[in-house]
């Protein structure tokens, strides 16, 4: 934090400015009269909770959306940016949360894709030379001829960044770039971004993680519910101050985790193997035991077999080898319905696709999977009275913000959607809960709420298997931490003895630390 540069020194040239920028998605005002400016060569964080309007603002600058009111000034001149390609031509590049790459093409082809090139043929040699130069300049190791699907997520992100640099942009927008990176990769990204900014590139860095703001930015603009709360110099504020600006109240950062005596084994995995959708072995022999009253964190970067392991355990993916035992009964090979009825509930990573039916009412979603179980069924019929009471009680106790239980689920925000899932999964009184990235994309306030729910359940003797990419979350909640890398558990440690440095390296697949 100490080495941040004072923006007033040498950063006086305003590259981009917005004036009362407003974007409406009726009935929501996504951006409400936002004024802010980007200096040349600064790293400017856009901080805010989910739904605060960060991405919308960026998409307006990138020409993806057209603002309803207000103006954008680029180098002091009023401009109208109608499309991303116009933005690129002006010198604005953006790396989205979801990469816009063609999987079956090479790095080089992706970088050249969609560019206006003089003549019919691509000058591949010159392009390759330029890409190699850029890679060398920033110490990035990337083969221009590699196919995208062969690359790690971190490398794919580099392709996106290179694409913008190749175009020669002056302003680079990064939308939550660290969401897909290991702590180690994030560190590297930060140091490279700093170098880029020193060389004159302006960077807008969208995030909801306070640590990153402090680590990387020169200035930060905080948004809340579509409105700008303020712009401050990063070196002048504290994390707590930023958090207060972001949520409008004080946030407790550490949840209290009381020591609990670990009970008997609930869920045992013996040499579990499974294939991914492409038929590759992506879970390669996992042995684990989850105990009563324990939160076992599975730390790892996405794509290392978590999704497949999760699906094996809930019974929707075939176990190729090994067995899973739930409270003494072998459940591998059993149907998802059977496993659920044995007291294993789950919070899937993608709540919209895997956890909820968006066209259903909140009440209907509260019983998804339990519609045949009593008391929700009475004879041939659904027992609406019981269902409604259950839904209403859950809405109250989980503080789900919706007009009524008959409201369509699709209109809820991400945090409230997750609360519906939790209310249902916890309401079924499970003995084991599997949670895959339960807090991804949630607001600080909701995350705190989810964490407290898990700790409460742990206190009641429920075993929780928590898959997460967020090392902070794992450290906060887990009793023990298992690191998964390429389908194998590299190490299991007690959280008290865990070393964050070592965990980060393990997540990146480095097993032995060499003493330098």
């Amino acid at each position, binding site marked *: 934090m100490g080495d941040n540069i004072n923006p007033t020194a040498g950063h006086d040239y305003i590259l981009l400015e917005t004036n009362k920028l407003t974007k409406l*998605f*009726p*009935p929501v005002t996504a951006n409400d009269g936002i004024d802010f400016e980007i200096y040349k060569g600064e790293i400017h964080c856009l901080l805010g909770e989910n739904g605060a309007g960060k991405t919308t603002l960026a998409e307006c600058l990138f020409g993806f959306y*057209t*603002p*309803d*009111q*207000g*103006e*954008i000034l680029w180098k002091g001149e*009023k401009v*109208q940016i*109608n*499309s991303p390609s116009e933005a690129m031509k002006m010198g604005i590049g953006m790396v989205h949360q979801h990469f816009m790459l063609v999987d079956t093409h090479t790095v080089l082809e992706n970088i050249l894709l969609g560019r206006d090139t003089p003549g019919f043929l691509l000058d591949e040699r010159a392009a390759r030379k330029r890409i190699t130069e850029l890679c060398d300049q920033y110490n990035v190791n990337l083969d221009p001829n590699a196919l995208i699907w062969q690359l790690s997520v971190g490398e794919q992100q580099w392709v996106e960044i290179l694409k913008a640099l190749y175009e020669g942009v002056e302003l680079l927008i990064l939308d939550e770039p660290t969401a897909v990176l290991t702590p180690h990769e994030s560190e590297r990204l930060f140091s490279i971004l700093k170098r880029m900014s020193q060389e004159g590139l302006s960077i807008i860095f969208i995030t909801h993680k306070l640590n990153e703001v402090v680590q990387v930015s020169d200035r930060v603009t905080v948004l809340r519910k579509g409105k700008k709360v303020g712009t401050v110099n990063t070196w002048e504020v504290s994390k707590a101050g930023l958090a207060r600006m972001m949520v409008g109240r004080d946030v407790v950062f550490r949840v209290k985790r009381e020591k609990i005596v670990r009970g008997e084994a609930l869920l045992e995995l013996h040499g579990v193997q499974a294939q991914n959708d492409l038929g590759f072995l992506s879970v390669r022999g996992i042995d684990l035991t989850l105990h009563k009253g324990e939160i076992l964190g599975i730390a790892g970067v996405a794509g290392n077999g978590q999704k497949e392991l999760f699906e094996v355990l*809930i*019974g*929707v993916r075939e176990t190729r080898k090994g067995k899973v035992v739930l409270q003494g009964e072998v459940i591998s090979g059993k*149907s*998802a*319905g*059977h*496993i*659920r*009825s044995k007291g294993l509930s*789950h919070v*899937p990573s993608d709540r919209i*696709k*895997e*956890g*909820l*039916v*968006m*066209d*259903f009412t909140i009440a*209907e979603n509260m*019983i*998804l*999977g339990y*519609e*045949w179980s009593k008391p*929700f*069924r009475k004879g*041939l*019929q*659904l027992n*609406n009275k019981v269902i409604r009471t259950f839904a209403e009680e859950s809405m109250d106790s989980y503080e789900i913000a919706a007009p009524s239980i008959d409201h369509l689920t699709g209109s809820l925000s991400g945090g409230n959607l997750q609360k519906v899932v939790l209310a249902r999964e916890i309401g079924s009184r499970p003995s084991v809960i599997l949670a895959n990235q339960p807090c991804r994309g949630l607001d600080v306030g909701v995350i705190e709420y989810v964490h407290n729910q898990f700790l409460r359940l742990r206190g009641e003797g429920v075993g929780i298997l928590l898959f997460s990419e967020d090392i902070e979350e794992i450290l906060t909640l887990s009793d023990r931490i298992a690191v998964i890398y390429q389908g194998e558990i590299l190490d299991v440690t007690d959280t008290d003895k865990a070393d964050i440095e070592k965990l980060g390296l393990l997540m990146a697949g480095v097993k032995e630390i060499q003493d330098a």
Partner: protein
Amino acid sequence: MLKAFGLEVVKARKINPIVQILLIIVAVLVAFLISGWFISLTGGDPAEAFTVMFKGAFGNKRKVLETLLRSAPLLLTALATVITFRAQIWSIGQEGQLFSGAMFAYLLYRIFQPVLREGLLLLTVVVIGGFLGGALLGLLSGFMKAKFNVDIIISTVMLNYIVTTMLLFLLYDHKYWMGTTTYYPRTDPIAESSWYPILTSDSRLHMGFLIAVGLAILIYWILKRTPYGYDIRALGANPIATKFKGINIGRLIMITMFFSGGLAGLAGAGEVFGVHHNLSMEISPGYGYTGIIIAMVAELNPLICILVSVLFGGLINGSTILIAATGIHSSITFVIQALILMSVLICRALMKYRIRRIAHVG
């Protein structure tokens, strides 16, 4: 693409349900308007044609009852469509299931008639036969989907051809099915004592109509109020979440295809035992396919299906005397049906979205 013209598509605000219904009615009227234009293109007089059609369909009590009679098989095949399409199981097999229901009902009739003679028991056997004939064919497609992931559209369409062509073959070439009293490809007539009971003495309207309406109400209740209906809607709205939550999708598809086929099969039995009193290719002028259109127009709502079935039944009946009265060929019915479907679908899309000008900066 629209952006180039300064336009964008956005979700529309919720429209008042009454306004929605009015707009749908306007859409149907627009379809008739365009049909009228087609009629005038062929040199006919649209006003005269529509008057003749309306009179033919709803002109007097007998005509109304005839229209209701015609709507019975349409309603059943529409209901067969509703339960599958609600689950996003794209079954196009209603026509084949209608015929296999008719065939199975006829087969059971031939087997049991010598024993049971007549009466309620034989009638029950016939109705169950009709249901099972269609249901088993539907189950076959459902089974192939669940066990071998054979596409439902492909298997049902192929089975339509197999079943209808097989019936034709039997009617021409198989002693058991070939009629002994006629050279037409049709079976011997059903004994009058085994016909479906008539509801009113002065018409042909038979109990099949009541069965169909009763089933429409039953299916409405099933979809809304039972766990099975819940599963159908869940599968249709989000198959992945349905699978993740442990609902046995293969079994659900098989059960749904079984019932869907059964509904279409009942339509076939009704035509044989209630209308034609023999089995031939003529029992369905494509009721199975028309049922799909009706279900779509009715937005897959079983109760609205009743209304739309009567409308479409009226269209068919009204057109039968069209050529004699005005010289316009009755195939205009299919034009009208298709136009109604398209204009209602377009109307619904327009109610959900709207196009607006992009506000410009400055």
